[in-house]
């Protein structure tokens, strides 16, 4: 599904290299976790995959189903099925959450040459999914993320993900700032979306999330590279020992 090969990325404005030859492959139907110290480049990776401005790819490639992501506009990547749950979801004053969702859903459908969702169909789907995530009707009407608590913002990202039904889901620290119950809601939401045609790249600092969402593979990232990959036990090791030994061992 997602294949990243020897990716080198620097900032466009300054001479600062952030990703330094990162390779990673997530096959269809799998969940991969990415862990790594602060500043190792995890969010940068997620932004580059989603198509944010300000980065220059100097070497390497990133493809989804064999198609190069890096040549596409952000909205084309979204229409192709890529979704990023932001570490810091953005506030859009004056734009209702529902309006935003509906515009997004229909924009993607249109880009894929599909029929737009009828208003009845849309409302039904939103209500159902919002209920699962315990997002109430009032929050659906409020402007996108404005005045939402940290945890509400994260749940809202998962609501968008559920509505857009992407095939490649990248989640950047969705668990940070969630209370125990919210963590369960979000994990249940993600698990419900798991299937043979959908893959996840889950960026996290905590092993706890991975108790709920069982990963197939755990990657350790440091200084712009994947330095070690392994099974779920790798996350346990990080939890217990920190990154020190792991990184030393990887050189």
């Amino acid at each position: 599904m997602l294949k990243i090969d020897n990716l080198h990325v620097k900032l466009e404005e300054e001479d600062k290299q952030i990703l330094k030859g990162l390779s990673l492959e997530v096959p269809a139907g799998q969940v991969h976790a990415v862990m790594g110290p602060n500043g190792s480049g995890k969010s940068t990776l997620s932004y580059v995959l989603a198509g944010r401005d300000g980065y220059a790819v100097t070497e390497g490639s990133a493809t989804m189903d064999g198609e190069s992501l890096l040549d596409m506009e952000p909205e084309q990547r979204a229409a192709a099925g890529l979704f990023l749950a932001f570490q810091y979801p953005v506030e859009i004053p004056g734009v209702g959450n529902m309006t935003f969702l509906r515009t997004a859903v229909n924009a993607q459908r249109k880009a894929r040459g599909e029929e737009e969702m009828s208003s009845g169909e849309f409302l039904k789907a939103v209500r159902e999914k919002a209920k699962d995530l315990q997002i109430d009707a009032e929050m659906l009407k409020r402007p996108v993320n404005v005045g939402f608590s940290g945890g509400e913002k994260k749940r809202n990202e998962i609501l968008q993900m559920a509505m857009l039904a992407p095939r490649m889901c990248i989640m950047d620290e969705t668990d940070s700032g969630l209370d125990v119950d919210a963590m369960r809601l979000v994990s249940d939401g993600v698990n419900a979306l798991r299937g043979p045609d959908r893959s996840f790249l889950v960026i996290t600092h905590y092993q706890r999330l991975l108790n709920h969402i069982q990963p197939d593979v755990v990657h350790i990232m440091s200084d712009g590279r994947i330095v070690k990959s392994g099974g779920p036990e790798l996350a346990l090791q990080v939890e217990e020992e920190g990154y020190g030994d792991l990184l030393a061992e990887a050189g």
Partner: protein
Amino acid sequence: MTETTDLDVREGVDRETVETVQSMGSYKHGWNTEIEMDYAPKGVNEDIVRLISNKNGEPAWMTEWRLEAFRRWATMSEPRWAMLNYPEIDYQDQYYYARPKSMEVKPQSLDDVDPKLLATYEKLGIPLKEQMILAGVEGADAAPAEGRKVAVDAVFDSVSLGTTFKDELAKAGVIFCSISEAIREHPELVKKYLGSVVPQSDNFFATLNSAVFSDGSFVYVPPGVRCPMELSTYFRINAENTGQFERTLIIADKGSYVSYLEGCTAPQRDTTQLHAAVVEIVVLEDAEVKYSTVQNWYPGDENGKGGIYNFVTKRADCREARAKVMWTQVETGSAITWKYPSCILRGDESQGEFYSIAIANNWQQADTGTKMIHLGKNTRSRIVSKGISAGQAQNTYRGLVSMHPRATNSRNYTQCDSLLIGDRCGAHTVPYIEVKNTSSRVEHEATTSKVDDDQLFYCRSRGMDEEEAVALVVNGFCRDVLQALPMEFAMEAQALVAISLEGSVG
């Protein structure tokens, strides 16, 4: 359940926006109807003023009134204090009167109506029955009406073509007709109120309008009457090189209520065109008037060629106690906009509100705002202005809040937000505040911001293209004002916001 409907409708509004954006090229109303016209010769002088008065079948007092204005105008010079830059206007190189030829004989059925005129109405989104009435088809009023009830007066090149739902309005005692008809049929009302809010000599453009106005709408709502439907005027400029001078007069008698909508469009032309309208509103005791405008005159092309020069004087006089007026405007068109819908809060406890969205893209220039003149005690005013600049456009908010000595315990709140798209445009805020008593309070808040890249990226990462993303963010920025509009207009306005910003990014 109510909640559902509410959401549903809101969703509908935004859906409409997105669809419109996607389906449209650039300027939506840029078609031009080839209709045979009758013109008066170019230029303005006393003979032309008499000719216009004569064509409208006006009584002598009206002709005199116009001539008085013309003589005054001949001594005045154009104001130059606004932050607007445009070449000198040659007032003798314009036509001051144009009228579709087909209006001279009344048609018997729609088949007799100039099909191009009908096509025009269709493009304006006017329903069939209303088209018949507007086209002057005899007996059209008896035809069954369609669902929506908005009485329409269509003014085509400054000539009122007809008004719908007249009978039904008449039953409620409401007069809604063209101003030329009002001058003939209701001279006592016109004599009493015309020029009583915007005097003949008010300013250069208003004075010119007083001399040469060709038509416009007239509304009178009698005491205690809540007007049973929204009233609406569509203004359309079609003829080339023709100055457009509409005159609107609205009188809300004691305890009455009316909501009035005004829509404006014009075809694409390489040459600039002058438009100088006057709107006067008289609000008596306990009456309330809502006046909403969606102004979409042709703005000129992306190189600044052509477009309408829009010099408009709009003023409401809350003449008696507890009178209320609310101006809402969405200004997206015109190459030059010079417009300050104002409220004179004369009656004690009277209230004025002004909600404005002004968008200037490419080479457009807008200098717009409001004046709140507090004369009565305990008067209240509220100003919410959203200015959006893109391309190389200049957008100025100019506002005056004046609290006179007698206007004790009065309040004003002003919020003035500017949004910049790109870095070649400009936004300016020029607030004038005068407080001449100690118990009144004036609050002014102003912000200027740029369209946020993170917001745009967030929208795009969810699948919206760049223009859709800008439209959504800008519509959010304008939310407070869009919500003040009647629902039907809100849809059109949202779509317009999107269309007028096309090409402003990337």
